[in-house]
Structures are given as C-alpha cells and as structure tokens.
C-alpha cells in the first residue's frame, strides 16, 4: 500500500509569490543572486510588467556560466539577469497533480518548477515541501 498522498494538486503546495525571489528583466545578476540568497532558494523567476514569466535563473545556470565565461566577474555581475537566464523554462499549472509534478522534477533533474496559469506566474513548486506534503498525506 502506498504511503503517498496522490490526491494533492500543485496549487495546494506551491509557494505563493511572496515566498520566492521574483525579479525584472533589468535586475542585474548580482541583485538577483542576493535575492535568491535571502530566500534561501536556488532559483529566481523573471517576470514582465503583466506578471508573465520571462525566464528563470538557477544556481546551476550560474555555475555553468562561471565555468566558461571569459569576461571579468564584475562584468558578469552587472549584466541584466535576463541575459544570463533560461528564457523558456519548464513550467507547470496549479491543477497538475503533485505526484506528477515531482515525477517531472525527477525526470528533468530540477528542484523547482514555476507554476503558470493563464500566462501568469502564480507560484513556485519547490521539491522539499512537495515531498513533505506527499509523505504527510
């Protein structure tokens, strides 16, 4: 018998917009990283004026960039975050089942998935609370 709560949807577990870093496309990378640090999350979402998701940046993206960028670190920090971001991230909707979303995380080897409904960012599914919710079911 499974111990997992299979009835939960993403919308019941996702972090709301106040609980994860959201920046604009002209936020510089340094400020985005500081915001990620403040929230203790390895991802920041970049949104447009209407709340649409323009991209995300993650610890892994920064790590990969650091391994191959040739310009000075100061020039990297001052870049608009959008220039260093993933512009077409994987997203999920709030009515996706939580277990399917966690399965998608496993398949794509990511810890966070932006939640987008009606073309607007409405939350972030983070792996830890997702697993906790599944086990507590």
């Amino acid at each position, binding site marked *: 018998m499974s111990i997992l709560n299979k009835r939960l949807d993403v919308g019941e577990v996702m972090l709301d917009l106040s609980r994860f870093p959201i920046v604009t496309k002209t936020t510089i990378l340094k400020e985005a990283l500081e915001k990620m640090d403040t929230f203790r999350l390895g991802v920041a979402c970049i949104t447009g004026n209407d709340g649409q998701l323009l991209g995300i940046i993650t610890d892994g993206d920064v790590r990969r960039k650091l391994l191959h*960028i040739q310009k000075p670190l*100061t020039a990297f920090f*001052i870049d608009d975050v959008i*220039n*260093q971001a993933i512009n077409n991230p994987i997203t999920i909707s709030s009515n996706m089942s939580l277990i399917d979303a966690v399965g998608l995380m496993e398949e794509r080897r990511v810890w966070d998935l932006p939640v987008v409904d009606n073309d607007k960012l409405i939350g972030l599914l983070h792996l830890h609370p997702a697993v906790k919710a599944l086990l507590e079911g």
Partner: protein
Amino acid sequence: MNNKIITIGYGKVKKVKVGHQLPLVFFGGPCAIESKDHAFFMADAVGEICEKLNVPWVYKSCYDKDCRSAPDSFHGTGLESGLQILADVRDEFGVPVVSGFSVASRAKATGEVCDMVQVPAYLCRQTSILRAAAETDRPVHLKKGQFMSPWNMKNSVRKLEAHGCEQIILADRGTFLGYGALVNDMTSFPIMQKTGYPVCFDATHSIQLPTSMGNISGGQREFIPYLVRAAIGCGINALFMEVHDNPKAALSDANTVLDLQYMENVLHQAKIMHETRLELLDKFGEDNVHPE
C-alpha cells in the same frame, strides 16, 4: 537589446538624432567658451565644415572648466555669461549646444539653455551630479571615467534612469594606463552599447597625457585620426572632438584640441568609414561571433 535613439535639440534649432544605424553625429567646438566673438567664429567655421560634409552636429563648449591642473589655469567665462553665449550661438546658427557642468546646483541652469548636458568623466559616478543631470530633462552626454571599466558605466546609467532619464549617450575618452597616459580600449564601445544607449568617441581627450607637463596636461594630437578610424570601425554613433582655430592660444586643453585646419580631413574620413560600416551591417548583419 533595445537600441535607443536619442534626439538632441529643442525649440527652433535643428534636431539631431543619435543612435543605431543612423548617420554619424559630430559634437565639437572649443573646449572652453573664450568670448562671444570666438564662439561665433568657431560655430560658423565648424558649422560650415559639417554642412559641407552633411554631418549633423552639436556645438560643444563649456562655461566652466573645473578639472584644470593648475590653480591659475583659465577656469571659464562663468555660468551666466557662458550660458548667454551658448544661447546666442543657438539663436544665431540654429545648432543644438552642449556644455558640461561640474556642480549639481548648476545643472538646472545648464539644462535650461543647452540642448544636451554633459557629465564630466571625473564625475561620472557621482550620484548628486547624475541626479541633477537627469532632472534637467535634457539628453545626457555621460563620459566614462578614466578609472572606470566600460561595464561599470551601467551603474551610472542606472542612476540616471532611477531619476527618470532615458536619453543618454555614453562616451569613451580613454582609460588610465599608469600615471601619465591614457589608452583606448575599443571593446568599450560594444560593451557600453549593451546598455541600449548610443556611444560616442571623444578623440581629443583620448590622446591626452594627463598632467604630463607638470601642471598642465599634454597630448599627442598626431594620433587623433588613427583612433577616430578605429572607433568608427567599432561602431560608434557619435564623434566628439574639441577644435580650435589657434590651439597654441586656446585657453583650455591647448595640447589636445584639434587644429581647425585638420577637422574636415578627419571628419570626412570618419563619415565615409561610418557609412561603409552601415553598409557592412546591412550586408552581413550584426556581429554574432561566439555569443555568451
């Protein structure tokens, strides 16, 4: 990248547009305003060359030179008389004018007369100066400090933007190499263009040898044409040169101003090279070599 077009000129003067894929614009005149007669003579002479070459231009001359090396060097005509002369130049020749300012409290008056205000390189990161420049509501010609990296100019741009200014032209006037020399890092142009704003090359200050003459700066004017050609090749949108009919007698920057007799030759080459560059851009597209 959103390439911005900057329009210089209010009222009855000729409007000058600076930006991506537009004709090269010239900013020029004597470093300092020396007298009304001299300003008129220079505006007439420079204007004649620009008209002959069909180069849009902005008359540049400052009423105050606050970065002179010696305490007794010519400091300028002063705010009121200097701005009056610039206003008279605008009226007489229909050309937009630009002047620098070095004290935040003088920005408003400068912007009330000038079509563009200039922030000196030494002051390019001073918040009060940048805020005052932004609050004039005029385009801002912001020179990269000799101590600043081109990417760090974005911090100064953000300060201007934070105070509502989105009409900015970024200029390179050389970067310190040790104590007595400047070099031009030509990558500064594409790097500063990444801000979305047009860029300008200040050729005559780039050949300056800072304070090399003990209490005044020297300069190697023979290199002006070389650097101009290099900068044009790197895609500048505007060219800045201080010119004087009698450099030896110039009251400011006598060792760096270009003698008026050479201006047409240098500017003509710059115009042809710029047009060729635009043709190359049209034929081959934007450089996209090893993008990040």
